[in-house]
């Protein structure tokens, strides 16, 4: 008898299995989750909105292929440095020395080629070696001596910049001298015209290739996953068998090498080599990363967000300039964007 009852009792029970309570999501919550899943959506939206707004304000001129390609040229340096900065910020660090590394590398390339008369190919190689070395110093201090990245790179920023001034003797190398003696240094400045008057430089192409390459490395290689894991939760990453120190060291070295690439591109863009250049590159690159939706707390963000972030800044500056708005309001607008981006990040983090 007892055995028969099982079925009868079971039939009386509700057919539902254990489940989580499903809330009706409000519009805001859905947006929050959407942005959490697609970190580049918000900056992309701002970019499109900005383009539309400036099209309305400025008119046809703004959307002319030449003007848009110009914006791309103008954000090339910050975009490249931004890739280095994104890598570091993904590991929950920050690199204040990127601008100084870039300038030092450009000065090394210039002086070894022009003053010492080395072949320009070797001069460029030396620049890259110096970049890697600077990155390695940052990485060493952060991983071996356990110094916080902010303070470490604040220190090395001063050190690299001082070395730059000493080595360059504060002297600018002129564009004309470089063109005559070491034109390979200006290689990245070679430009060509595509459809409708749009102009691209090899530097811009390099920027785009760098982003694609880094996107691949971050999303489709073990190293990329380790970078995200280390930034998201270093302890968990260690428990999962990741050598986080090795990952961090590699990130800072790669960042240094990218700064050297930025240096070469910088020479192409401005023609000359000035030890005074790149003074705002540190903060500008952080601006691009933050507006691009990468979290300063590490582990979350997409590399293409930084390109979009740099473009948003470039579009705002270009659009406001074409609209005849005073420069100080351009700075104001960029500041507002940064606050907006960080506020959005805080909100998304609560998912």
């Amino acid at each position, binding site marked *: 008898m007892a055995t028969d009852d099982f079925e009868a009792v079971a039939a009386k029970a509700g057919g539902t299995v254990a489940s989580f309570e499903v809330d009706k999501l409000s519009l805001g919550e859905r947006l929050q989750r959407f942005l959490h899943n697609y970190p580049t959506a918000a900056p992309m939206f701002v970019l499109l909105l900005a383009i539309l707004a400036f099209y309305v304000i400025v008119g046809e001129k703004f959307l002319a292929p030449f003007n848009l390609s110009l914006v791309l040229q103008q954000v090339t340096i910050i975009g490249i440095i931004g890739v280095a900065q994104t890598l570091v910020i993904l590991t929950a660090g920050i690199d204040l020395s990127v601008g100084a590394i870039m300038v030092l590398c450009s000065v090394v390339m210039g002086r070894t080629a022009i003053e010492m008369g080395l072949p320009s190919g070797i001069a460029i190689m030396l620049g890259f070696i110096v970049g890697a070395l600077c990155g390695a110093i940052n990485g060493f201090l952060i991983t071996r001596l356990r110094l916080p990245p902010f303070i470490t790179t604040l220190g090395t920023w001063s050190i690299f910049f001082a070395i730059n001034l000493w080595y360059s003797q504060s002297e*600018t190398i002129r564009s004309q001298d470089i063109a005559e003696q070491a034109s390979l240094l200006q290689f990245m400045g070679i430009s060509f015209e595509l459809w409708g008057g749009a102009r691209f430089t090899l530097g811009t192409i390099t920027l785009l290739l760098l982003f694609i390459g880094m996107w691949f490395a971050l999303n489709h290689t073990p190293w990329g996953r380790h970078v995200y894991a280390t930034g998201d939760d270093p302890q968990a990453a260690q428990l999962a068998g990741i050598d986080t120190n090795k990952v961090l060291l590699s990130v800072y070295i790669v960042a240094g090498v990218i700064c050297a690439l930025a240096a070469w591109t*910088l020479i192409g863009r*401005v023609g000359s080599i*000035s030890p005074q250049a790149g003074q705002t590159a540190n903060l500008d690159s952080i601006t691009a990363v933050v507006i691009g939706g990468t979290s300063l707390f590490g582990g979350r963000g997409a590399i293409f967000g930084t390109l979009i972030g740099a473009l948003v800044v470039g579009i705002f500056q270009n659009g406001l300039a074409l609209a005849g708005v005073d420069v100080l309001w351009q700075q104001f607008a960029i500041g507002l964007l940064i606050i907006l981006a960080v506020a959005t990040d805080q909100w998304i983090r609560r998912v």
Partner: protein
Amino acid sequence: MFKKTSIALALSLSLLVPAVSHAEGAIVGLITKTNTNPFFVKMKEGAEAKAKELGMTLQSFAGKVDGDNDTQVQAIENLIAAGAKGILITPSDSKAIVPAVEKARKAGILVIALDTPLDPANAADATFATDNFKAGELIGQWAAATLGDKAKDAKIALLDLNVNQISVDVARDQGFLKGFGIDLKDAKKMGDEDDKRIVGNDVTSGSEEGGRKAMENLMQKDAGVNVVYTINEPAAAGAYEALKAVGKEKEVLIVSVDGGCPGVKNVRDGVIGATSMQFPLLMASKGIEAVAEFAKSGTKPQNSEGLDFMNTGVELITDKPASGINSLTSEEGLKKCWG
């Protein structure tokens, strides 16, 4: 009032020091805005050479960045403590530095502002500087004369330093416009002119990168730009790269101010049409001489006639002289350039 106190100070000083006072061994301080800009590097070299020649001890200081007032205040305090006879300073913040300068003068130190006047100018004992308005005026006159009849249809891009309307930036910009023959409205303010020939103002931070970007933006506003004023020669070099990128470098006149050696070479190579050269080395060496004289006899330097500072001079450098405007060629300029 000022004179009385300074005489009193000079007298009290002469009582403190042995009757025959010498400049020899006296400490003189040099405080520059930064130690990165070649202009200040050259200034320091000039001061070092002169101090050595006169047997004085030079102590130099510099702010960390342009605009860094705190470090300059500390430097003044250190120099007062060290018992300096004189201080030469290029103020980063002309107003904010004044209380510290007053303290130094009360301690009997001769304070000379180099390159940038204090605000008010008489807060220093003297100012040795370039007449920046005149520097701008010269290149403005040259540009107008070179264009001739076409000057009345010119399209002018103005590449300034930054948005702060600091005195040097304003003086050069407004001087250029006056020289070119444009109504200035308020001569203490950039960007308030309504002459149709002006395409626009943009800022460069005085760098190549900034110059290139500003030029690109202004060309987007009006592609017909044919006269470009630049705050300094790095900005001019950047503007030239922007023009070269669109094949317009031959059609546009670029003028600038500074007289650095790379800039003068750019005049020689046709990158810059004309530049107004200033003389940082002279500012520094004259400053040291003035301190030596003050240490010896207590006399203070005098201003140039009709100006509230001592003019260390300005020379127009160009290889295409315009009639009625005195100028030197780039070859001559290369012998006098700095940095």
